[in-house]
């Protein structure tokens, strides 16, 4: 790697000025992961993960495929179960207690690589389902909230269509709006742009940047290094189920410490 920072923001045209006024990291702990281990059968996917996320942080997790980065964030809302160690989300420890799990899940939004919208429901119904059935919000109010967030992701006019009628980028923005309707305090993004055509990546990244500007606590598994550089306050590099290196993005890209990181960055940045 050279000493100059490659201008990553050119990629997918993150050309706007980021409004950093509300992007403040506080001392309040949002997620505390200690000595967490996970196995898939005999395979040790996550090894001794220690990680503290403070309220307001924007963390980008990157690493080669199979490094366990998706598994890590899926453990945070217990889509995957960890076998040892501790995960505390907003003061609630994740155990096999279903009540705690549902509580954490309703406070943590998640956006998937393949959107996972509900194809049998309209966009509006996708967004109001959880508020109505989990939060017990009256339908009318839930629809107002949903329209508010659909406007925010700039597709209110699609509200009565079905997911199958929307483009990939639009679907992913709906998926973000659907999560936001639950008014989560933490958002997890699991490779949100990996399944999208290049021209649609920008619209999704824009939405994510907007969210970051409002001070949302976010953890993103992504290969969009431009996004990492523009928005993240910390980049976590994982390999073979371990956190290999983490740093603030400028230092991370300019001055990677481990050989593994250097190799990864040289491959992903295409030099």
């Amino acid at each position, binding site marked *: 790697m050279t000493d100059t920072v490659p201008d990553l923001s050119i990629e997918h045209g993150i050309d706007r000025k980021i409004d950093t006024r509300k992007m403040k990291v506080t001392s309040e702990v949002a997620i505390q992961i200690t000595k967490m281990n996970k196995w898939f059968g005999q395979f040790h996917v996550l090894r001794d993960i220690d990680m503290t996320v403070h309220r307001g942080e924007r963390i980008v997790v990157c690493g080669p495929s199979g490094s366990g980065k998706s598994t890590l964030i899926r453990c945070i809302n217990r889509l995957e179960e960890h076998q040892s160690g501790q995960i505390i989300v907003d003061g609630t420890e994740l155990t096999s207690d279903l009540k705690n799990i549902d509580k954490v899940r309703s406070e*943590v939004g998640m956006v998937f690589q393949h959107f996972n919208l509900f194809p049998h429901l309209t966009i509006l119904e996708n967004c109001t389902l*959880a508020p109505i059935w*989990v939060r017990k919000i009256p339908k009318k109010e839930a629809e107002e909230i949903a329209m508010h967030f659909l406007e925010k992701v700039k597709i209110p006019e699609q509200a009565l269509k079905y997911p199958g009628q929307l483009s990939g980028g639009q679907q992913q923005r709906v998926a973000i709006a659907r999560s936001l309707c639950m008014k989560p305090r933490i958002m997890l993004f699991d490779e949100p742009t990996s399944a999208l055509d290049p021209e649609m990546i920008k619209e999704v990244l824009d939405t994510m940047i907007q969210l970051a500007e409002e001070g949302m606590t976010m953890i993103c598994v992504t290969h969009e290094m431009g996004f990492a550089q523009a928005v993240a306050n910390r980049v976590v590099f994982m390999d073979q189920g371990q956190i290999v290196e983490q740093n603030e993005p400028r230092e991370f890209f300019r001055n990677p410490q481990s050989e593994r990181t250097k190799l990864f960055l040289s491959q992903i940045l295409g030099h």
Partner: protein
Amino acid sequence: MSDTHAQTVAFVRDTMIPEQVPPVTERGAVKWLRENLFNGWLSTVLTVLSLLVVAWMVLETGPWLMRSVWDAGSLSECRRIWAEAGVPAGACWGVINDRLHQLLFGFYPPHLYWRPVLALALLLVALGPILFPWVPRKLIWFSAAYPFMAYFLLWGGSIWLPVSAALGFVVAGAVLVLLRPLGTLPATLAAFLAPLLWWAVAAGPFASVMSDLLPVGIEFVRSDRFGGFLISLVIGVTGISLSLPLGILLALGRQSDMILIKSICVTFIEFIRGVPLITLLFTASLLLNYFLPPGTSFDLILRVIIMVTLFAAAYMAEVIRGGLAALPRGQYEAADALGLDYWKAQRLIIMPQALRIAIPGIVNTFIGLFKDTTLVVFIGLLDPIGLSNAIRASSDWQGIYWELFIFIGAVFFVFCFGMSRYSMYLERRLRTDHR
């Protein structure tokens, strides 16, 4: 070459060619015939063969149908009519005319025919909100009450028996609401056990006490008076409406993480599917009595309904499991990630999609079940087939069979074809994936 200038390189069209009709082979009936009937030599051969088969069938059955006799009280009367006209034998539909009531109602008391007819009319009303979205939603309460009304209308007796049976569900609902603060699981368990307790202990005495206090009722009709299409519909409709929910529960149980529930469901499904229906029916009619406490008389039709339902539910469970397996994992994960609990996720996300995928298989099972109701003839119930045997044994109609079986087949066909059409309508209506 009139409108081009061949000598120059540039080309300017000075006359526009008017639109012309396509050649005769490319339009109208000729095009249709060529594309659909004579598209290559194989297609042509098959077309000719099919036409020959159709012609042969029409020539064979046509004259027989043309010589139909409708007004006759017996087969010999039909024969006399043909002999007088000097024609060979034809179709003697007089048997349908003569025995229609029997084919429809069996030995149900004729002065009470209005009761099954009313029950059928109310069935159509009760099906409305279940089958069609444009029917007012409020009517679903009528559908919920319908089974008890239908029982009362068909069998009669004291009104308090169906009422006390229905009260079991009211008890369940009340327990569920009252115990909600204790948590979902205890409340659900209690709501499941409370009605069982009610039916086992309180329902009988309640019904008899109420009958003494306020005797309201209509004439009681014993099960052995039931017959014909009445019995097919009673067994078929009850079996269909019970086997779907039971099948859903079995399919979910089979996918459960809880090993005990899973093995119970797997054993049940595999056992029931592995045994012929007729065996189960014989069990219902003969063996069950040995296992029941002496003195209990357990209605034969009810026993048959239970067996048919269990049989169809086992098939249903596998059909629905197919639908569940077709759903991407992401749907479960998205539901989980939004904080929906298991039952809400199943009800709002998983089942609506899995059932839609499984519609063809579900309706297939329904149709199979409905036609299988004719098997009850082997345990002595007088369904249409059983009645046709009885009718043919009478001196008036000895020797007739085509007409009876065509009629019975046609009625079954109308019901099954109706179900099939409805399922296609439903598939179209629920198609939202726009693939």
